[in-house]
Each structure stands twice: as structure tokens, then as C-alpha cells.
């Protein structure tokens, strides 16, 4: 099943609606990285609220997305990890090191906004946030 990717301002939002196969995940990774460039996105949010299982491939793909997007100039947040999933993940040692996480979509957006704010304050103020 293909994951819909929505553009919202400077951000891309990929909302996973059902369990994904490894091929679906790879396809999502490709599509996101491609669109980060096409839409000049500053942030990527991957919403995994609907997932009640996360295996090592899924976690690795999410981590890859975050790192690849960063190389393309975009910050990634994973949102909506269920408590049970989080617990299972750390027990398996899949801790998404170096990847930002947030409670839900709203928090994720707030987090990205804050990141953009920081960039503007640190930079020359040339970035137009629209």
C-alpha cells in the first residue's frame, strides 16, 4: 500500500495508515527523499500512530529516512509511536538514535517550527518561512 505524502507549508507529512511491507517502506523512503528536493521541504514528519508493530527493518528505514533527509537539508521527526511499541523497541535495542521524535503530529509540527526559528536566529535571517 502506498503511503500518502502531503505537503504542508515547508513540511512534508507522511502518514502511515496500515502495516507496511519491506517493499512499501523502501518505496516510502525513495519517495520522501525525492520530494524533499522537489518541494524544497525544510522538515519531514513521519506519522506511525497506526503501527502497532515495528520490526528492525522498519526502524532502520525510518532512521535512514532521517539521515538521508538531513543530507538533503531537511529535519525529520517521527511522531505517534505507541507506548507498547516504544517499550518493545527499546527491549529489542531499536532506539532510533539520532532521530527526533514527538508525541503526535501537532507536537511534531511545533518541534519543526522551533527548529526553523533556531536556524533563523542563528543564521543571517535570510530564510523566509512563508
Amino acid at each position: 500500500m502506498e503511503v500518502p505524502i502531503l505537503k504542508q507549508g515547508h513540511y512534508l507529512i507522511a502518514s502511515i495508515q496500515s502495516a507496511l511491507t519491506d517493499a512499501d517502506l523502501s518505496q516510502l523512503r525513495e519517495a520522501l527523499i525525492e520530494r524533499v528536493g522537489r518541494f524544497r521541504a525544510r522538515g519531514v514528519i513521519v506519522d506511525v500512530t497506526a503501527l502497532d508493530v515495528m520490526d528492525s527493518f522498519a526502524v532502520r528505514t525510518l532512521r535512514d529516512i532521517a539521515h538521508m533527509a538531513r543530507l538533503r537539508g531537511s529535519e525529520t521527526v517521527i511522531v505517534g509511536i505507541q507506548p507498547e511499541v516504544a517499550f518493545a523497541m527499546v527491549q529489542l535495542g531499536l532506539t532510533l538514535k539520532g532521530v527526533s521524535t514527538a508525541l503526535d503530529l501537532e507536537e511534531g509540527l511545533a518541534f519543526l517550527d522551533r527548529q526553523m526559528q533556531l536556524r533563523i536566529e542563528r543564521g543571517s535571517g535570510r530564510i523566509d518561512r512563508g
Partner: protein
Amino acid sequence: MATKGKDALPPPPDPQALSESTAALLRELVAHLRQNRTQLREEWARRITRAQLLTAMTEEEIFAEATSVYDNYVEALETGTFEALQAYARNLSERIIPRGVETHEVVGIVLLLRDVLARSLFAKYHEDFDKLNRILDAYEPAANRIANTVAVGFVQERERIIRQQQEAIRELSTPVLQVRERLLILPIIGVIDPQRARQLTEQLLRAIRTNRAKVVVIDITGVAAMDSNVANHLVQTVEASRLLGATVIVTGLSPEIAQTLVTIGVDLSEMATVGDLQGGIEEAERLLGYKVLPFEELTSKT
């Protein structure tokens, strides 16, 4: 007189495996027990007091309880069904367990009643040894089953109460408190075993979700000792919380725990630690963008 009583009584509703003659004998027995109710009951209550059972209850209470146990006992003998007795035993246990009545006391009084009734049968049929034998053949299995039912009912009720209390203690032992919007504290007191650690994490993760917490302060001032299992679990809790988007600050590590953790080499690099709970809450407020000022200072500024 026994024959008269037999005629007056309805036949048992559920003959089950009882042969006709056993049923007739039981009917006769029940009639005898009904007729001598007052006397036997008093004898029984006397024996209970003499054996110093049920010391937690007053004499009147014992007598009242004895009466209803006696009646239920006779009824179980009469009908051969044990549901009513079972229900009564459960109900009785529910009432007397909180008063500190022990298992041996409950088993003891039921066995005493069995003895009292057997004695009265001896007295009644001592002239007809053959009849006495047949009556006892009918009486003993039923009486033993009753004793069994009551004892099992009592023990089951006790176990139920113990389970319930364990559950309550477990719930109480891990309060997750919200001190400010989006700030939770989790004070841990006492020994952390793997089961408790697991439950603690589950409760915390659920609370983070429902309260939409951004920062959690885990205070372990009340934890006396920590081994590598518990320490690793704590690290896992911190990481799982981060996956939900919450930052965890651990406070109140005692010098002993700090030494143990460093000695056994637990990797705590991912964990933010602050000396005490106050410092932890201040740090959390800073992360959340709060600034707490005395009221005077605040009004003089504006």
C-alpha cells in the same frame, strides 16, 4: 419418631448417585439433626469455645454463626447439593477474614461439628449397631465433602483477597503525577524488581501519552539499591520515553547507587541526571520555558 420425620420431609431433589437406601438413611439423619437442633448447636458452640477457636469473635457472634452454619450443613446433607453451602462459605469467609480468622480455625470448627453430630448418632443408635454402621456410611462421605467445600471456599476467598491487595499495592506503588502542564514526576520508593520495573515503565509511557507530557522527572531518592538489571531497565525507560517525544530527568541517585552504577559499568551517557528532586523540577521547568519568580519580584517588574 425418626419415621415420622422421614414422612414429613420431601424427597431430595437431586438423588444423584445415592442409592435409595442411602437417601432414606440421609433423610432419617436430617430429621434427627433437625429435631435436636438446639441441643447439638449448643454443644458445638461450647466445643468451639473450649478449643479456643474463633477467638477474634465474641460468644454471641460465634453462636449466631454456628446457627447458620448448622442450618446450611443440614441443608447440604438433605439436598446433596453444595452450591448453597459454597455460596454461604464464601460469604462467611468474606465476613470473617478481615477479622483475622485463620484457616485452621475454620477447618477446626467444621471438623468439630462433624464430631458432635457423629457422637449424637452414636448415642442414638448405640443399641442397633448394624443401623449405626449404615447411617455412618451415609453420613461420613457427605460430611467430609461438606468439610472440604467449606475449607476450599475459605482458602479461595483468602487467595482472592490476597490477589486483590497485591493488585492494589502494585497500583499504589507507581503513582505518576502531573505537577505542571506537560511535566510529570514519578517518585519511586522501595525495591524495584523486574516485574515492578516493567509495570512502572508501562504506566509511565501510558501517562506520557494521556497527559501529553514533554518532560518527566523520575525521582529515585527512595530506592536503596540498584543492580545492573534495574539500571538497564531505567535506561530502557528513558529511551522509550524519548521515542514518545518526552525528555526524562533522573534525580536523587544516592552516593551508593552512583558508585554501583559506575562500578558495574552501566552506560548512563543517554540519561540526564540532576542531584535532587527540586533541581530536577527546576531543570524541567527550564526545558518547558517556565520561569518561577516570587510574586513581589514579578509585580515590581511589570
